[in-house]
């Protein structure tokens, strides 16, 4: 079942096109990474998904139903953080959750609100006014309000911004737990690429309002050339040997006994076989392709 279907989604602000015919499909149970550089149209897309902004063209379907026609019913199944975690600063964390929970028809019993505040580590500050909170604490409160009504789809826009390293790990584990244990679908927009790499199952990268690439995270990372670091016993001999093969032009560096090459996945075995046949001892072969490199490769290309 598709939880999110965006079809030909477009948003223009005057002459500026923020989102340009975007098509996205998110399936039930996905942790879906939503990536793009600043100004790519991520927040505008999320706002259209939550009916904060009206699309100029295209449709948003959630849980198979058009958002425009079933707004309230669909929003009751979504919890979201949209950009900065802003709250009613003159009210306490508890009162903020109680009010927002009432509007979401959630269980606003003291026990449930305190349980949620406990999940995000704010139970000891429940009765503090939000104006006394740091950005990281507001971010945690934002996650609590997104979970208030036990939604099926959770939209998280930069959920770890402002958190300390432990907070980032906590939120990452919470996201994985929500997906694995509670079968929630997560739509995760983030600039912190390792976070997406570690949590997302599928992802899309958008730039200038258009999807550049979409698919399973590991498939995308494994496709094309990647950096391969080969640690050998005799680097000079190994380098000279590689220079005599078609892989000569793929050498991009040497470091402390290791040779770094740009190879496609299928080529790794051929190179290892070649070095072995030349009698060169291989200590390790480490293919590395981070999402960060992949992201930069794609978004550097003028589109």
């Amino acid at each position, binding site marked *: 079942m598709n939880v999110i279907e965006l079809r030909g989604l477009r948003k223009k602000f005057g002459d500026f096109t923020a989102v340009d015919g975007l098509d996205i499909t998110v399936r039930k149970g996905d942790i879906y990474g939503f990536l793009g550089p600043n100004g790519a149209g991520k927040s505008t897309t999320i706002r259209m998904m939550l009916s*904060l902004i009206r699309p100029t063209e295209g449709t948003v379907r959630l849980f198979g139903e058009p958002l425009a026609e079933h707004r309230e019913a669909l929003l009751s199944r979504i919890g979201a953080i949209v*950009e900065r975690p802003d709250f009613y600063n003159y*009210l306490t964390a508890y009162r903020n959750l109680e009010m927002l929970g009432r509007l*979401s028809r959630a269980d606003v019993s003291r026990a449930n609100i305190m349980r949620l505040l406990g999940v995000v580590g704010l139970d000891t500050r429940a009765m503090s006014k939000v104006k006394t909170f740091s950005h990281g604490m507001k971010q945690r409160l934002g996650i609590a309000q997104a979970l208030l009504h036990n939604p099926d789809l959770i939209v998280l826009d930069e959920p770890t911004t402002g958190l300390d390293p432990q907070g980032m790990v906590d939120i990452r584990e919470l996201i994985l737990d929500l997906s694995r244990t509670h079968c929630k679908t997560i739509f995760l927009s983030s600039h912190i690429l390792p976070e997406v790499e570690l949590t997302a199952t599928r992802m899309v990268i958008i730039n200038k309002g258009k999807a550049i690439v979409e698919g399973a995270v590991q498939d995308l990372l494994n496709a094309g050339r990647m950096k391969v670091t080969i640690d050998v016993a005799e680097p000079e001999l190994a380098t000279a040997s590689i220079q005599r093969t078609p892989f000569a032009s793929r050498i991009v560096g040497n470091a402390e006994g290791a040779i770094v090459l740009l190879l496609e996945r299928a080529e790794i075995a051929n190179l290892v076989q070649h070095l072995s046949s030349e009698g060169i001892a291989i200590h390790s072969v480490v293919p590395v392709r981070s999402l960060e490199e992949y992201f930069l490769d794609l978004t550097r290309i003028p589109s």
Partner: protein
Amino acid sequence: MILTVLRVELTKVFSKWRTIIGFLVIAVIVPVVIVAMKVEGMRFFQYSTQALQDAFTFTGNLMNGYTISYIILGMLYIHVPFLTTLVAGDILAGEATAGTYRVLLTRPVSRFSVVTAKWMASMVYANLLVLLMAILSIVIGLLVLGTGELLVVRSQIVILAQDDIIWRLASAYAFAALSMSTVAAIAFLFSSLVENAIGPIMTTMGIIIVLTILSSIDTPLFDPLRKVAFTSHMIGWRFFFDQVVDWSRVSTSALVLVGHIVVCFIATQFIMHRKDILT
């Protein structure tokens, strides 16, 4: 559901300092005016009836609780709109300023319900301000200054008997509540257009001041303006202190004010329905 949203909106409105300040101002000014009138009231009375002193003899407790309620209603007519706009001008724009539209409008509640509940909360606030002013001025006024006849000096002198005053004061304050609701509705409309509460407050007060000035200039050029400007009709409470109440003028003014409220409400709903939330 709309009652739930209203409950939430009232919680927000009555948790803000600007709301409390409105009530505090009324709670301080009214007793201060009453005490001042207790001390200096007769001098004020003699000054305001200076032109009549040679022709008439005034006897009895004319600076009484009813008189002070009448005076306070007239005196605070420019101050209470300001207090009203402080809250009504902030109720939508404040969400934009604080960035809280994002958590509010992603709840499973229609925008119509949110806007209606906010409008109702503005009305509750405006009406409570007038109610507080009425209760304080009448109760404290009667306790401090006692009862008596009400002498109204305008284009003619009207002397109202004690047993003929309470219903007139109650009606005048009810009309004042309608007037403040109109001010609240206008500030509410401006609040939907901008992302900062200062704009709606300044614009609404500016309109009140400009229309009041233009309406008071006695030239035929401004006759059409006087007929439709809400400021001309806000002073309709005075009709209740004529010897014989002109109900057609009262109802005309009331209808004009209700018309302003309805138009502002519909316009705000339309604007908010189409508004892209970018803050």
